[in-house]
């Protein structure tokens, strides 16, 4: 007897199940040998090619600390996401009671002493056209927003920011000619710097914040003013904004130069 059936019902079921496997072509053992040799040779060749290719990729010349091809791929990723409809996209918001303590992860650019007459230097392509004091910014309409702050390392905290919409700040203190594509944000000592695109800068949820969880920013959180946006990882949310420069070419970025995606965004 053929098959695994123990009774009539199973036997009937087995025949029905086997019907779906019937259409497979049947070849002789000799023909199988020929085809099998060819298949295994291609299989082996593809395996070796894949292994060699992957090693080549890993050891490829680097573009800002990662293999060129991977860098190229990250840029294409952003092409995909910026082509897809994203107007109106907004990050989830939470209730103020959900807010948590936020981790402090980096002190780059925060070590030096801040002068008492500190003001943000506003520049267009390297030329300063205005200086904006923290009080100027605080005179703008304040907004409270609660969202999840996400670190590129994987952790996330729900935090409550208070600040002016970056778009409001730009409307008041932005350059006369509105033809910029990017903004370079830097700490006063230029130790830490990020670049953001127009979309992020003008997004409703992007703030120039002065308070975190209801308290004025402490030094480690970026006092007196920092960038806060739920559309970028923490590495892009510059603490202690000292220089705001409008550019037509994409500005560099601290972590971009160290192998990360320039966009690092959601």
């Amino acid at each position: 007897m053929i098959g695994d059936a123990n009774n009539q019902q199973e036997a009937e079921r087995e025949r029905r199940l086997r019907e779906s496997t019937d259409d497979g072509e049947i070849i002789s053992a000799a023909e199988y040998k020929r085809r099998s040799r060819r298949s295994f040779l291609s299989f082996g060749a593809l395996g070796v090619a894949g292994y060699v290719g992957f090693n080549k990729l890993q050891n490829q010349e680097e573009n800002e600390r990662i293999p060129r091809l991977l860098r190229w791929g990250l840029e294409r990723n952003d092409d995909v996401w910026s082509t897809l409809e994203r107007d109106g996209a907004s990050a989830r918001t939470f209730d103020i009671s959900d807010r948590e303590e936020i981790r402090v992860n980096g002190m780059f650019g925060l070590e030096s002493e801040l002068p008492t007459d500190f003001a943000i230097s506003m520049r267009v392509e390297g030329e300063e056209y205005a200086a904006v004091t923290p009080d100027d910014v605080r005179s703008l309409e304040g907004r409270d927003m609660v969202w999840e702050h996400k670190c590129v390392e994987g952790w996330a905290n729900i935090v409550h920011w208070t600040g002016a919409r970056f778009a409001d700040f730009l409307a008041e203190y932005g350059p006369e000619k509105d033809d910029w594509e990017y903004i370079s944000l830097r700490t006063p000592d230029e130790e830490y710097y990020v670049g953001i695109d127009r979309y992020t800068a003008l997004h409703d949820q992007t703030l120039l914040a002065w308070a975190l969880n209801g308290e004025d920013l402490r030094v480690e959180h970026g006092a007196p003013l920092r960038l806060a946006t739920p559309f970028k990882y923490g590495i892009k949310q510059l603490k202690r904004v000292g220089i705001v420069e409008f550019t037509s070419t994409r500005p560099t970025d601290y972590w971009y130069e160290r192998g990360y995606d320039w966009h690092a965004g959601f």
Partner: protein
Amino acid sequence: MSETIDDAEVASSDGSDESVTVEYVAQKKHSLALRWMHWINFPVLMVMMYSGMRIYWSDLREPYALGIGSWQIFEFWPDQVKSGLQLERKLAKGIAFHLNFGWFFVINGLAYMFFLSRKGEWRHIVPDLQAVKDSRRTVAHDLHLTKNKPVQGKYNPAQQVVYSIVIVMAALLVLSGFAIYKPGQLSWLEAAFGGYNYARFVHFSMTILLMLFFLVHVLQVVRAGWANFASMVTGYRLDRSDSAEVAPASAFGPNDLDAENRTGANTDGDTDSGSGSGARSGSSDDEMVRATVDEGSAS
């Protein structure tokens, strides 16, 4: 080809021991498309898991261990593993590989979905209720708890159940991945997972479960033997010409139970039909007449 089958026929019909010239034939089991999609998954998932682990261990202070909240079953894995595999402080490269190679998995998965639907291949995979029930018996059989094996089509009931679950898991893996990747633009997806941390948890859990599946899968492939493994490379499965693997469906079924005693002409007729469809349909008609005893069995 027909020559081989004739030999088999002789061997089975006379039924005596001395006729043992065992002939082998091969039957097509896996299409070229299926084999490509199957094997692409292997290196792509290796790269994804490796780069994923580099991302995972970038947060050195508090590894996201298996458990809920502060209750942890264990951490993945000992420090020696992390440093040995160069998993620490490789976040940038981890992300670069992960976000590039992920697309291969997505495209491969979409191609597979198309394949499943277009060719009706899902019928081989998706179990019916009986197969779900039978899957326990497959497991018992493979653990040598019973000799009794449930009946099956292309895949056995346990394979059907597990493969179906794995497909769903892979879909969850991709979707949770997108939720983690673009929680701004795809905030609805992030919300669908119950939030960022849950999406991460799903992503991580599915990975662990896929690894476990992979281990069992490889173990089962080793157990199933070379012909089975080779079929995923060559597309053909080499078997004895008188084995169930290459027999046509009409060789199975109620008639064979009583044919056992009679060494009936029916069995031979079935073996013959392997070479031509005309013969096959003829013999199944024959069977239908005899099968009427069993109500509703003819179909």
